[in-house]
């Protein structure tokens, strides 16, 4: 059986052909994505390239994922920031969406207008435990209905408010789904039903709206968001498949032009005896997406999140030259640094800092507390300090000359000891860019995908 997997990115359409008999990748190729005209053109161009490299290819199955046209853009709403708003964000992120912003409590006029400006594909509306607060979710529902735009709403909050929500949405004419609460009981996470709804809506709406339906017809398999495919590959690689063991706990870092995604496959239980977990428990397979940290489209906000002096010190390039380069890249996102130039060192420093910030936001936070029983630590989120492996995926890492230096941003920093990041990880690189492909393949032949992942992943 020969599988062809296609990852329709915003810039490139990437193909990988896999042979299940030999258990190997026959070849990979990429071409520009042609979402503006017909997405199949780019697909065929890539296929021709692939065939010119490996000879004529007759594939048995075609499976696709896509992050074209901005991917799946979402906003999430909840009640308390650390509770249902966080749960909503976790659910949307784990479904492979780009969560642009999370809102809590009743949204303000300004926030309502902001959502209209973001123009999301989907909105996840949460708030209240079952039988708990219902005022906030119903009032936010009414406000969402006033927002112009063609989006669908997924309501996953207090079940006791579902009748009211049904009435509000029905009379407004907005497309909506009501599903199980993301936090049915206090501090109990239930994101799977919301995640499934997001996936279904992606297929129903996004695939159609973004010109992917023609490809969907060719494939016969449902198109999923690319980050979801990557998430599946990470989960498979961590847990293993029937009879074949996985790698155990791991973290993966995907650095792109617009976002930085962090995946962690780990229970994240406290690593110290006197450490007490606090707050909302997080899922084993967690993804976080930072829409303000990226190497090009999100460079303005990345520049804001860091300090020119840090970049200057890391890259050994004077601050004014760093500033100049950043401004140039912001003005023209197609700018590429010349090899072995000071600008390339700036790029590496930037990448490292983006990963540093993104992993800090992803990891648990440890606070020291003095009690009559001595010093204790309160852990909010996942303790990833014992995670042994960090995998680099995405162009900025794969094409770098010194990926270890960049990936080191994910490592525990004694100066910033409150973040429970991996203390002594080994670094790996997805050098052939196969994570999304293997994630797709895992839904039909997990054993094959796992074997290839394990073989192709290189320690660096």
């Amino acid at each position, binding site marked *: 059986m020969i599988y062809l997997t296609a990852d329709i990115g915003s810039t490139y359409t990437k193909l990988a052909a896999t042979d299940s008999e030999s258990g190997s990748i026959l070849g990979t190729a990429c071409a520009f994505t042609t979402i503006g005209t017909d997405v199949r053109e780019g697909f065929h161009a890539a296929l021709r390239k692939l065939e010119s490299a490996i000879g004529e290819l007759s594939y048995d199955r075609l499976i696709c994922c896509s992050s074209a046209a901005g991917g799946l853009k979402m906003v999430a709403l909840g009640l308390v920031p650390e509770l249902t708003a966080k749960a909503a964000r976790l659910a949307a992120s784990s479904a492979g969406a780009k969560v642009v912003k999370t809102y809590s409590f009743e949204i303000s006029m300004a926030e309502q207008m902001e959502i209209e400006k973001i123009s999301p594909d989907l909105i996840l509306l949460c708030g209240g435990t079952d*039988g*708990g*607060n219902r005022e906030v979710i119903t009032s936010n529902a009414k406000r969402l209905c006033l927002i112009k735009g063609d989006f669908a709403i997924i309501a996953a909050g207090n079940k006791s408010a579902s009748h009211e929500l049904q009435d509000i949405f029905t009379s407004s004419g907005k497309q909506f789904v009501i599903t199980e609460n993301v936090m049915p009981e*206090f501090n109990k996470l239930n994101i799977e039903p919301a995640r499934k709804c997001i996936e279904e809506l992606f297929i129903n709406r996004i695939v159609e709206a973004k010109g992917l339906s023609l490809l969907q017809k060719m494939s016969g398999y449902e198109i999923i968001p690319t980050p979801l495919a990557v998430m599946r590959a990470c989960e498979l690689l961590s847990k293993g498949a029937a009879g074949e063991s996985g790698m155990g706990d791991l973290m993966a870092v995907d650095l792109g032009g617009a976002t930085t995604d962090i995946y962690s496959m780990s229970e994240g239980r406290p690593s110290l005896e006197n450490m*007490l977990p606090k707050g909302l428990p997080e899922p084993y397979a967690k993804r976080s997406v930072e829409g303000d940290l990226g190497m090009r489209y999100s460079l303005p906000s990345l520049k804001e999140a860091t300090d020119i002096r840090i970049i200057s010190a890391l890259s050994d390039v004077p601050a004014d030259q760093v500033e100049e380069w950043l401004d140039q890249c912001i003005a023209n996102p197609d700018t590429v640094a010349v090899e072995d130039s000071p600008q390339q060192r700036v790029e590496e420093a930037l990448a490292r800092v983006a990963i540093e910030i993104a992993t800090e936001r992803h990891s648990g936070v440890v606070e020291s507390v003095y*009690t009559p029983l001595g010093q204790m630590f*309160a852990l909010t989120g996942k303790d990833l300090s014992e995670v042994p492996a960090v995998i680099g995926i995405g162009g900025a890492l794969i094409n770098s000359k010194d990926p270890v230096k960049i990936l080191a941003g994910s490592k525990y920093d004694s100066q910033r000891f409150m973040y429970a990041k991996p203390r002594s990880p080994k670094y790996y690189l997805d050098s052939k860019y196969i994570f999304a492909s293997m994630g797709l393949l895992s839904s039909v032949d997990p054993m094959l995908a796992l074997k290839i992942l394990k073989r192709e992943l290189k320690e660096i």
Partner: protein
Amino acid sequence: MKKKTIVTGVIGADVHAVGNKILAYALEQAGYNIVNLGVMVSQEEYIEAALETNADAILVSSLYGHGEIDCNGLREKCDEAGLKNIPLLAGGNLVVGKQEFSEVEKRFLDMGFTKVYPPGTQPETTIEDLKIMLQ
């Protein structure tokens, strides 16, 4: 009738877990829906839990003697968060040393607590009070 929801937990840096579990069990048996936050609970956590669950009362325990410091300002924060008039109950070993309970009680009532209990109070007493309070 709908079950009443009560938020329980041990406030501050206090890690005394046993009494907290017993109290939560007793209240559950008495027919309440209990959101037990466990030990080392900050004022903000009580409030956040009460907001999401639409709680009817907050029951604060403290055994290590720092209860007065830990509880100070909780009522004001509840008011700020929109939990106006939510009953706040406190009990355990609230202050350091042997102090007259009536004085301790007064100080807690002045801080905005609805009901204060001396050391050694049986869960039944609190349950009876809650029944009246939450009618």
